[in-house]
C-alpha cells in the first residue's frame, strides 16, 4: 500500500514540489473512495475539501429548472476537484457526482490553509499550480461559451 506522498508524487498537480513540501501536504490528505452515484460535493454546502482524482470520473453538475440537472464538466484521473476551500465563504458552487467507482486523495482545506499560512513558500508553490489549472479551465470554459458548434447565421 503506497503512502499518500507516494501517490501525490506521481500527480501532475504537484509536479516539482520538494519532498518536504509533499510530506507537509500529505499530512492533510487521506484516501477516500466513492461508489457510483455518490455526491462528493453539493451546491451551497460548506466545502472544506479538495480532491485529487486517482481513478474514475466525476461529473460537475447544476440543476437548471425545466431542463433538469446539466453536466458542466467531467473530471478524470489526475485532475483536481474543488476550489471553495481556498476562497471564503467556502461554499460549493456545483454538485459533484461520482460517475462510477471513484478513488481520490481528499485534502482537508482548513489543515492545508493552516500549513500554507505557516509556510508561505509552500503556499506560493501550491497557488502557482492551482492558478495554472484554473487558467486552463477558464480558457476552455470561455471557448465553450462561444457555442461554436451551435452558432448559425441569424442566431
Amino acid at each position, binding site marked *: 500500500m503506497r503512502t499518500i506522498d507516494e501517490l501525490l508524487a506521481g500527480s501532475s498537480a504537484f509536479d516539482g514540489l520538494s519532498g518536504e513540501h509533499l510530506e507537509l501536504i500529505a499530512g492533510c490528505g487521506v484516501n477516500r473512495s466513492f461508489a457510483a452515484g455518490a455526491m462528493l460535493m453539493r451546491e451551497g454546502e460548506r466545502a472544506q475539501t479538495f480532491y485529487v482524482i486517482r481513478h474514475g470520473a466525476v*461529473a460537475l453538475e447544476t440543476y437548471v429548472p425545466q431542463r433538469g440537472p*446539466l453536466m458542466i464538466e*467531467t473530471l478524470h484521473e489526475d485532475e483536481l476537484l474543488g476550489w471553495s476551500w481556498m476562497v471564503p465563504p467556502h461554499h460549493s458552487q456545483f454538485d459533484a*457526482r461520482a460517475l462510477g467507482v471513484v478513488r481520490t486523495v481528499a485534502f482537508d482545506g482548513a489543515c492545508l490553509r493552516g500549513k500554507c499560512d505557516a509556510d508561505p513558500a509552500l503556499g506560493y508553490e501550491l497557488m502557482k499550480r492551482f492558478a495554472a489549472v484554473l487558467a486552463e479551465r477558464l480558457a476552455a470554459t470561455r*471557448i465553450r461559451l462561444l*457555442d*461554436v*458548434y451551435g*452558432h448559425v447565421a441569424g442566431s
Partner: protein
Amino acid sequence: MSPAAEAVIAPHPMRPAPWRVVHKTRETRDTWSLELVPYGCTTTEPYAPGQFAMIYAFGAGEAPISVSEASERHLMHTVRAVGPTTNAICALGVGDQVGVRGPFGTAWPLEAAEGADVVVVAGGIGLAPLRPAVLHLLANRERYGRVSVLYGGRAPSELLFPRDLERWRARFDVDVDVTVDAAPDVWRGRVGLVTKLIPRAAFDPADTVAMIVGPEVMMRFVAAGLRERGVPAERIHVSMERSMRCAVGHCGHCQLGPAFVCQDGPVFPWNVAGPLMEVRER
C-alpha cells in the same frame, strides 16, 4: 477512365450531372445524410477522403457539401440545413434527383501518413468530412501506427454517427474519445472542451499526422494544443471553409489570401492555414 464514368463527368465545368437519392438518414435535428448513386451509369470518378462535391437542388441552388463516404458506385453527403439551399437539399427524399459536380479540392494526406501515428480531431459536423479518412485508416489499419479519434460536440443529441463511434470504439486497435460541451445527467461520457482530450491521447508527437475539422475557433485551439505537445505544423492538417459559387477557381469567392479554398484546399497543412487564419477577416 471507363466510358461509363465519362458519361457522369459533364464536359462544362459548371454543369451538374444527375444523381439519385437512394437512402436518407436523419443524423441530428438539423443534419441529414443522403446516399447518392449516379443516374444513367453505374460508376463514378473516385472521391478521395477530404474532397467535396457541389450539390444542386433543382431550382434552389448549389452548395459545397462534405463527402462522408464514397466508393466508385456511390456518394454519401452529410448536410446541415442552415440556409435556403441546404434546406432544399435536406428536404429531398429517396428517389429524388440532385445535380452533382465534383470531385473538387485537396484530400487528406493518408498516404503520406502511412507509418505514423494518426490523430483525427473532429468538432460538431466536422466529423463528416473526416469519416472517409477514418474508414480508410481502419480499412488499412496495418499501415499506420496508433490511431486516435477525438470528437467534440455541443451535446449528446448533436453527435454524428454514434453507431460508427461505438463500432470504432469496440475495436481494440483504435482509441476513440468523445466529449460534449454540456449534457443532461444521463450522459455517461465526458463533458468538456475537445482540446482537453489532446494531452491524454496516445500518440508520439515526433511521428504523428493530425487531421482536424470543426469551427475555425475550435481548429485554432486544437492545433495549438497539438503544437504544445510537439506535433510539427506541417503534419497538422485542417479543412477550411469559404463561400463557393463555382468550385473551379473562377468565381473568386473562396479566396483565403493567395489560396483558392476550392483548389488549394479545403485540406491545408497548418503551417499554411495557421498564418492565413491569423489575419482577421481575411
